[in-house]
Structure formats: C-alpha cells, structure tokens
C-alpha cells in the first residue's frame, strides 16, 4: 500500500462525505434537487410576440412586465425568459390552472381613457350618424385618432380611422369591415375618441402611479380599483374632467370611457371638476376581476401584443408528477441493486469494489445535480438511470482486461495497472462519442420550443458519463490497490472465477 494510494483514498472518502452532506443539507442556498415541470406539475407556455419592426428592448420589457404580474400571484420560482428573437417562455411550477395562467400572461393590459365624440351642434355622435350619409371625414375634425364602437358588453365592434382615401372601418385584427355588414347590426353605438389633456396627450395607463383593489364605500359594497395618477397624469385627468364636468347631467357627453385592450370596462360620469390625482374604476366587477385588473394596471401594459393561441402549451398536474418521482426512484434503486448483484457474481471481489464505486457514483452525480443545479425532468432521470448502466461499462472493460492479464500469469498489482492502462483508450474514445451525442442533444434542446426533455436528458447523461469515468478509473483502482501485497491478492479465485479452468 503506497502513500499515494492512501492519499487518494482519503480524498475519495472526503469527496463521498461531501456529496452526502450536499444531498442532505442545504448548501450554497440549494435546499432540494430542482425538479422540472413534468415532475412537480405546472404550466409551460411559449408565445410569439406581434411586433411591427419591434424596438430592441421591447421584448425584455414585456418579460419584466409578465414577471411582475406573476410575482403578485405568489408562484415559486417562475421562469420567464426571452427565447430566440421574438418569443417569450413562461414556466410556472406548481401552477396548474392553465387558463388562468394564459389570462395572466397574454393580456396586453393597455388601459386608455376615451370620451364621446361630439358633432358641430355639441350632440353625441353614433355609428348610425357615420353610416347614414357615407361620410369621408370625421365629425370632430380636430381629433384624428381612431374611433371605437362597442356593443352592450363593451366589446369592440368596429374601429374607424381615416386615411388618404377617406374613412375606413376595421375589426380588432385590422381587417377591413364592409359598411353593409355594419348596417345590419346595431348602429346606435357611441363613437369613442381619445380623451386628451390640454396639451394633446392621450390619457393612458402609462400615467398610473398605483392601482389597488378596493371596495366602494356606499350602501351596497362593490369591488372597485383605486388608482393614483402620477403628476402628469393627474394634470391631464383634471383637464379632461374640467371639460366634461359642465355638461348636462346623465348625458353620455359627461362619461369618461375606460378601455382595457379595446374593451370598454367602465364608463363613469365625471361629477367633479377636478380629482387631484386619484380616482376609482367602478363597474360590475367581482373581487377576482378587481384583483386581476389592479395587477394588470400596476404591472403596466405589454409593449406589444402576444399572439394567441400560444405556440406551445403544456400542463402537467401535480399528482401525475409525484407519481413519476416515486416510480423513477424505484426503477433507479432496483436497477442499481441488480447491476451490483451481477457485478459481484460475475467479477467477484473487483465486482464488489465496482459496486461500492457505483454507490459513490450515484451519490456524487445526485449531489452535482443539486449543486449545479440541473433541473431534473422525467427524461433527465431516464438519462441518469441509463448512465448507471453505462457507468459500469468502464469497470467491465477494465476487469475483462485484468482477467486477461491474470490469465497471462501476471501478479495482481501488475494486472491491475495493465488492465487500467490498456482499457483507457477504449474508455476514452467510446465516451467521447457519447459526449458528441450529448452536445448535439443540447443544441437540439436549445433550438426547440418543447426543450425540457431533450435538454434534461443531454445534461444528465453528460454529467453521468463524465463522473463515471472518474469513479470507474480513480475510485475502483484506488480500492483495488488496497489489496495489492495482502494475502488476499494470492487468492486468484477472488478476482476471476474462471482462471483455474482456462
């Protein structure tokens, strides 16, 4: 037993102890193995953004806004990332209501304030007025902004804008609508134009400082959203209030239209000449709706809309995931035990040492998964379990070589060294091809939307094979060398059951 070998043994034991501690105790802020969505349950969405010559940074801003919205829901460790040039990936572990998740992410949340368009006589303008005498210009010629007509529920029916050719009606996606079609439907719809301050700035959610859910103080308590304007927003709002306030009571001209993503959510009347920077959005809201709305407004609007439906949707329930964990632990443990049995029966003492090395291997790999950290998915566990099977390969190669050397009549010490040295080139070359495949899988995982399984497998297989080279070569050799020069080394039957017979 050389001094070098004892040193190697001490280092290996220390590493083993470290790996066990790393698995049991929180280390470097890691409490648990990180599990993928398919194991803990959750929602995974990938959206494509709709942006006309998208400004750089718009997507990053959208990612921040979505993160703010989600954080308020208390999802632990959500992942919100830009993917590629124009995609956004959202992963919500443990959050299994996919429809709620989609509502939360995909709503643009663009809040704007509008008022009713007035004709020359100061009366409100309706869609019917525009349709009656096929006009080529707006009633209110000073206001160039788009008009919105909404139905009773507040949903947009048509948008009216002006180009060189005259007035043009479009739907929400921007497709032209035929005037005749519009005439068939309800036409007594108010024309909503942007509400602007005296300097011409339109009032939007961008001027909000705060938005929070609240309850009306009145005889019947109703949920509402309390808002607080920033300084500029407060001034614009008071400009508008001052203009609308003196109108006749109960007339539509006194209403301010609150639009969220082109839908009229509320149209309260202006009853004060000035509000000094605060207000409430009332309407027929439930408590949940008010909380959602306040969250949307507080987080801000997405700089560009997201394309619906998402490119990719995935939902896995928590119970299903928990089942997978139990089953794969079972598979891994049974696999390891069977391999150890096989190794001990076939290779005797070296097999036993290889089994010890295998236990060390499993512990070290799991500890690495936790520390790096690697997100374990079902496929990742598959890769790990597969790597257990392949981990003994290096040992099998070495032991077969050792047997040959022992048969050739060498001493145990010489056979060990020769076995390891001669097997090295095969171990190296065969594992490098596995690494090439892992690299390709990693690339594939980076380039596809449903990346979790591929990526998980590539990482766990790579780590597994890399560590197995270390454990098979360093650990097993160190353990074997302990026997060199002891009386046991003479008992060749311990090392190869068939030597006597060949």
């Amino acid at each position: 037993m050389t001094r070098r070998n004892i040193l190697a043994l001490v280092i290996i034991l220390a590493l083993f102890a470290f790996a066990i501690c790393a698995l049991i105790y929180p280390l470097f802020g890691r409490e648990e193995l990180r599990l993928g969505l398919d194991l803990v349950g959750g929602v995974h969405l990938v959206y494509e953004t709709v942006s006309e010559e998208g400004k750089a940074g718009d997507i990053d801003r959208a990612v921040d806004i979505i993160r703010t919205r989600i954080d308020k829901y208390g999802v632990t460790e959500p992942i919100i990332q830009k993917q590629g040039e124009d995609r956004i990936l959202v992963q919500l572990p443990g959050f299994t209501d996919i429809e709620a998740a989609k509502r939360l992410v995909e709503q643009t949340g663009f809040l704007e304030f509008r008022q009713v368009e007035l004709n020359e006589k100061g009366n409100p303008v309706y869609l019917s007025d525009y349709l009656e005498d096929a006009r080529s210009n707006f009633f209110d010629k000073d206001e160039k902004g788009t008009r919105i007509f909404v139905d009773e529920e507040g949903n947009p029916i048509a948008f009216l804008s002006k180009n060189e050719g005259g007035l043009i009606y479009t739907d929400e996606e921007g497709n032209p609508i035929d005037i005749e079609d519009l005439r068939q439907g309800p036409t007594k719809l108010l024309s909503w134009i942007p509400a602007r301050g005296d300097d011409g700035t339109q009032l939007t959610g961008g001027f909000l400082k705060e938005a929070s859910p609240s309850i009306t103080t009145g005889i019947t308590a109703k949920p509402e959203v309390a808002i607080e304007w920033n300084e500029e927003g407060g001034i614009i709002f008071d400009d508008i209030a001052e203009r609308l306030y003196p109108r006749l009571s109960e007339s539509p001209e006194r209403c301010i239209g609150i639009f969220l993503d082109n839908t009229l959510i509320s149209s309260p009347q202006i009853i004060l000449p000035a509000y000094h920077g605060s207000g409430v959005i009332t309407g027929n809201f439930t408590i949940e709706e008010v909380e959602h709305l306040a969250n949307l407004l507080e987080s801000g609007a997405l700089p560009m809309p997201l394309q619906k439906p998402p490119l990719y949707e995935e939902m896995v329930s928590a119970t299903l995931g928990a089942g997978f964990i139990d089953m794969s632990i079972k598979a891994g443990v049974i696999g390891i035990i069977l391999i150890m049995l096989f190794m001990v029966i076939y290779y005797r003492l070296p097999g036993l040492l290889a089994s010890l090395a295998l236990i060390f291997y499993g512990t070290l790999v799991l500890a690495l998964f936790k520390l790096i950290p690697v997100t374990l998915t079902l496929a990742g566990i598959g890769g790990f379990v597969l790597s257990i099977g392949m981990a003994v390969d290096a040992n099998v190669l070495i032991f077969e070589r050792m047997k040959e050397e022992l048969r050739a009549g060498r001493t145990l010490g010489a056979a060990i060294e020769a076995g390891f040295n001669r097997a090295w080139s095969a171990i190296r070359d065969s594992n490098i091809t596995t690494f090439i495949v892992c690299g390709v899988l990693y690339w594939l995982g980076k380039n596809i939307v449903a990346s979790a399984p591929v990526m998980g497998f590539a990482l766990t297989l790579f780590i597994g094979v890399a560590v197995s080279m270390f454990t098979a070569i360093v650990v097993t050799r160190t353990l074997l060398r302990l026997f060199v020069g002891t009386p046991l080394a003479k008992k060749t039957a311990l090392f190869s059951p068939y030597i006597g017979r060949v």
Partner: protein
Amino acid sequence: MFDITGKRFWFFLISGVVILIGIISLATFGLKAGIEFSSGSMMTLSFEQEVDHDELRQELASLGYTNAIVQRTGEGDFYIRTVTLGTEEKTSLEDALIARFGNLEEAEFYSVSPMVATETAWNAFWAVLAAAVGILLYITWAFRRMPSPFRYGTCAIVALLHDVLVVLGVFSILGGILNWEINLMFITGVLAVIGYSVNNTVVVFDRIRENLTKGVSPNFEIVVNNSLVETLSRSLNTSLTTLIVVLALLLFVGASIQNFAVVLLIGIITGTYSSIFIASQLLVVWEKGEWGRFLQWLPVAKAKSR
C-alpha cells in the same frame, strides 16, 4: 476460438431481412408523428367513474372529433389526441365529457402549433445528421494512425444507420398495430442509441487497433476475429447492465417514458449486434474488397438452407 468473421455473410443476411421488413412496414404504415412534429393537442384525462373506451370514442366523434385518437393508459385514465384546441373548444369539450361521463381531472395537456411542429421536426432531423457527421469525424480522427482511418468511421456510421433503421422499422410496426407515436422522447432515445451503438463499435475497433499494432497476425480477418472474441464478454456484459436499467425504467415508470425505454431496449440489442456482426465485418469485407462476393454467396446460402 469462435469463428465469427467467417460467418459474416449470414449476419448481413439476417440484418438485411430485418431491415427489409422494417422498410416494408415503413412504406406501408409509415411513422405516426406525435403532436411535437405534426401539431395538435393531447391530453390525459382521469375519470372518476368507469368509462368505456368505445363510448368515449363515440362521444368524441359526436362532438366533431372524428379523427381523435383515444388510448386507455390506466385505471380510468385516457390519452386523447385531437387537432389543436383553442381555449373555448377545450372548455366545451371537457364540459361535454363531464356531462356524459361524470367528473374528470385533467392530468396532462399539451398543445403544439403547426409552426413549432415543423421547426421541431427539422431540428430533430439536423440533430441526427449532426451526430452522425460528428461521430464520423471523431472516429476517423481517433483511428488516424491506422491505414485508411476513414473506413473505421464509415463502418461505424453504417452500423449506426443499421440500428436507427431497425428502431424505425420496429416503431413503424408498433405504430401500425398499437398506434404508437414518434415523439420528442423517441428522438432523444434514437440519439442515445446512436451514442450507445458507436460506443460499442469503438470498443471493438479499439481492440482491432491494438491487435494490429501488436501484429497479432498478418491476416486482417484473423485480427478482427480475435479482437471480437476478446471483447465479446465485455460487449455482452455492458449490454446486460444497460438492459437491466432500461427494463427497470420500462417496467416501473411506464407509459410516459415508454417510447423512450422501448427505443433504448431495441437500440441496445441491435447496437450490440451491429458492433460485433456488422461494423467489424464490414471492415473485413472492405479490406478484402469482396463487395461482390456477398451477392454471389446469396443464392448458395438459399440453396443450402433448403
């Protein structure tokens, strides 16, 4: 000592027959592409009450999903694959099923848009190609000191294609009979098999390299045969340990990882076979330049077997 190389044409014949069956199946059944590659929605629903497979299928058909694929995956659990479902379509589908069969829980839901599906299929194709090229280059490099190193790389790639073809053939049969689909886990499994197959081949080639350098025999065929025999127990033992864990995965984890485990299972068997009986034998055939002899041998072989 076993004479493996002497029977090389028999091994080519066996592989040829297996691959031919696979190709016929591929031509007849094709491969059933999962939603990752062809877009659509799939869900796993757990019903509280006992639900009959045919009734569920009929109900889906009456809701307009005539092409829906329905598979029972467990006690009261069903896998349903449809065209891409929007939010409203999905809600109304589930409401209709609840009204008909009682309460259910949605255990899994996936929906893939056509754009993503096309993208994924292409990327998977490129990945398989890149892996093959990368391995060819590496093996050619690793055997650069041998005469004609390119042969080693090429033979390893042929063995690899052999394994991929066998796996594809078996899956096409499974797809035709049991409606098994090719999903992302399948591609991951195929890439793992590629790695595994080459891994085995390299071990045998490594021994050939060593024995050639040692000058065991001037006859290349004997060198290859010796190398195969010497590495035989290693090849079988490693395959056995890997098979053990893959079987454990297949038996204990089940449905969700089934495709993956079955690909590996077939791949390990054919990968071991091809490393011994195809890759190294091709080296011998190439060395001897006897490409034409296999065809001459064929009618003789048939006459013998009669």
